[in-house]
């Protein structure tokens, strides 16, 4: 189906279902209940889930297949964001030109950085990409925002001002990002008993693009090109002595993943038309590495799961403050209550990174294959097969028995 084998098609269907039903799935707790703060089904966060999902899917094409660990992918995210806002400033608030330009410019940018960085491999490649990304950050933050030539608007962040040309803008169109007149912020709310579900245009646009990006990544993984990329990771020497030039293969993978990052950056601007330099900072580059490893490097769905998990932590755990903790532990005697709050306090609220760090360590130590490996282990408990047997069965299915 759609050029995919049965397993991959099922996986695609699962992702489609998750993406389309996310407003329901992420809001399992009724409005006003104590657990409602764990609901993640609001547009802002759901958009982040799918946008960072795209970012991680693209990163995985480079890191998962070729093994080249880029520490500078946030640069492409930033370039995409700026490109998209510039389209808003020049043409108007329709998101389509912005998204297309962000893919294009980040592709060119990735090509230039890739040509230089891919002259080295391993740690040197990582350092080169990190250096380029930090240079891009410095450029965006200060150098390119002087009064004579203001490309990025520095610290304030690039945004649309009322005196911007917006050549294609007309009075009948919304004065906010829109898709051919349909505002990104338009949200349909559905009240179902005690539950409230929100269906947001911006989210669904990003979700549809994420599904397409996911589909494309499956095709790349299963193509001869994808096989060559895995060959690069596996044995570069044999690659060259088989008559293959590894350089253009890795460069192509680098550019493709850079374009995915640019697309994600463009979408970030499309749902919120403000692009700041902090998107290019090294912490953002590190975050996508964490997402990919947490979910499962080199697996199809891993990066999507990893980005969802990290964004969930970032937005939900960070909101748990001491008063919330006190209400949780209020059933305990006073002394115990304060004690428990003190214990848990460092792990929530501003300390959510600590929880994430512990989780990351646990996963890397016990599940080197990430959440996907965890899923396989659980599946193994039900079917009684070991992971190795499952991998064998998967291999049998991915190539037709003739």
């Amino acid at each position, binding site marked *: 189906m759609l*050029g*995919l*084998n049965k397993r991959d098609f099922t996986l695609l269907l699962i992702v489609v279902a998750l993406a389309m039903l996310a407003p329901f799935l992420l809001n399992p707790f009724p409005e006003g209940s104590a657990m409602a703060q764990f609901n993640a089904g609001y547009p802002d966060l759901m958009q982040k889930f799918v946008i960072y999902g795209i970012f991680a899917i693209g990163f995985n094409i480079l890191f998962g297949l070729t093994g080249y660990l880029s520490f500078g992918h946030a640069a492409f995210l930033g370039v995409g964001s700026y490109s998209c806002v510039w389209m808003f400033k020049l043409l108007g608030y329709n998101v389509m030109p912005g998204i297309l330009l962000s893919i294009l410019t980040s592709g060119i940018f990735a090509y230039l950085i890739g040509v230089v960085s891919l002259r080295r491999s391993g740690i040197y490649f990582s350092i080169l990409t990190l250096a380029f990304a930090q240079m891009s950050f410095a450029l965006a933050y200060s150098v390119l925002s002087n009064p004579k030539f203001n490309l990025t608007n520095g610290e304030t962040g690039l945004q649309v001002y009322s005196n911007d040309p917006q050549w294609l803008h007309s009075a009948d169109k919304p004065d906010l990002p829109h898709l051919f007149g349909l505002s990104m912020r338009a949200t349909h709310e559905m009240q179902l008993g005690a539950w409230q579900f929100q269906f947001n245009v911006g989210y669904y646009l990003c979700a549809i693009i994420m599904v397409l990006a996911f589909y494309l990544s499956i*095709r*790349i993984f*299963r*193509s*001869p*090109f*994808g*096989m*060559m990329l*895995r*060959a690069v*990771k*596996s*044995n570069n*020497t*044999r*690659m*060259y*002595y*088989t*008559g*293959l*030039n590894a350089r*253009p*293969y890795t460069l*192509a993978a680098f550019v*493709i993943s850079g374009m995915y990052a640019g697309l994600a950056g463009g979408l970030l601007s499309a749902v919120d038309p403000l692009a700041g330099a902090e998107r290019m900072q090294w912490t953002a580059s590190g975050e996508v590495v964490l997402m990919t490893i947490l979910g499962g490097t080199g697996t199809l769905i891993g990066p999507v799961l990893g980005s969802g998990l990290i964004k969930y932590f970032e937005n939900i755990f960070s909101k748990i403050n001491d008063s919330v903790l006190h209400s949780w532990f209020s059933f305990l005697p006073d002394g115990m209550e304060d004690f428990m709050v003190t214990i848990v306090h460092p792990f929530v609220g501003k300390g959510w990174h600590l929880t994430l760090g512990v989780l990351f360590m646990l996963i890397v130590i016990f599940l080197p294959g990430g959440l996907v490996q965890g899923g396989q282990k659980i599946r193994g408990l039900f079917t009684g097969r070991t992971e190795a047997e499952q991998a*064998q069965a998967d*291999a*049998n299915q*991915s*190539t*037709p028995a*003739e």
Partner: protein
Amino acid sequence: MGILEVKNVNKRFGGLQALGDVNLSIEENTVHAIIGPNGAGKSTLLNVLIGKLIPDTGSVMFDGQSVLGRKSYEICQMGISRVFQTPEIFGDLTVLENMMIPIFAKRDGAFQMNAIGATTGEKDVIEQAEHMLESLNMIDKRHFHSAAMSRGDKRRLEIGMCLSQNPRLLLLDEPTAGMARADTNNTIDLLKQIKEERDITIAIIEHDMHVVFSLAERITVLAQGSPLVEDTPDKIKGHPKVREAYLGESA
């Protein structure tokens, strides 16, 4: 004219003359062994033959074309395949995938952006790869992870991967190093079988005299960076100079 002509090759590493005036001609469709004691310059010579090292002087011509200064993938595309001392295969991939990659490389050249079509749709390539695996008696292992196989099987696979590209010259660098006796014999049998079935030139660098004398039609003995003698195996066996090179003056 041999298929591979090495003329007046010199290579110096600082004060060490690694290769001194090497002249070597490998005839088409023969098995030519290069032997010599440790430090004789065998590996340096091999690296010159595949373009990895550029000699200080001299020329290396393959079928009338110079190999010097070419990238390793270009040399492979010219028709020279190399088998390494430790088997170099794609360990993360399955045996079948390992076999498909060289067939793709032969068909599509050094780089081909085929990112949308499914690998499983490449029926011709799969068929060729399976055919090759059948002739290696490895067809039942096609879904194995290649890294998990025995050394002998890895070697078999590596040789098969080279052969699937129909090379004109196959270079083997100590193909049985570190192998159990049974695996060594299997490898010898495989190489004999290849020799019978195909028009192919094989150059082999080897320590194990059992392997050399069971396979080679011509032998070049290298000592201290220069060819000492070149002859048929029978003549090499009793040659006094060879004994001297291997065992020292007193022998």
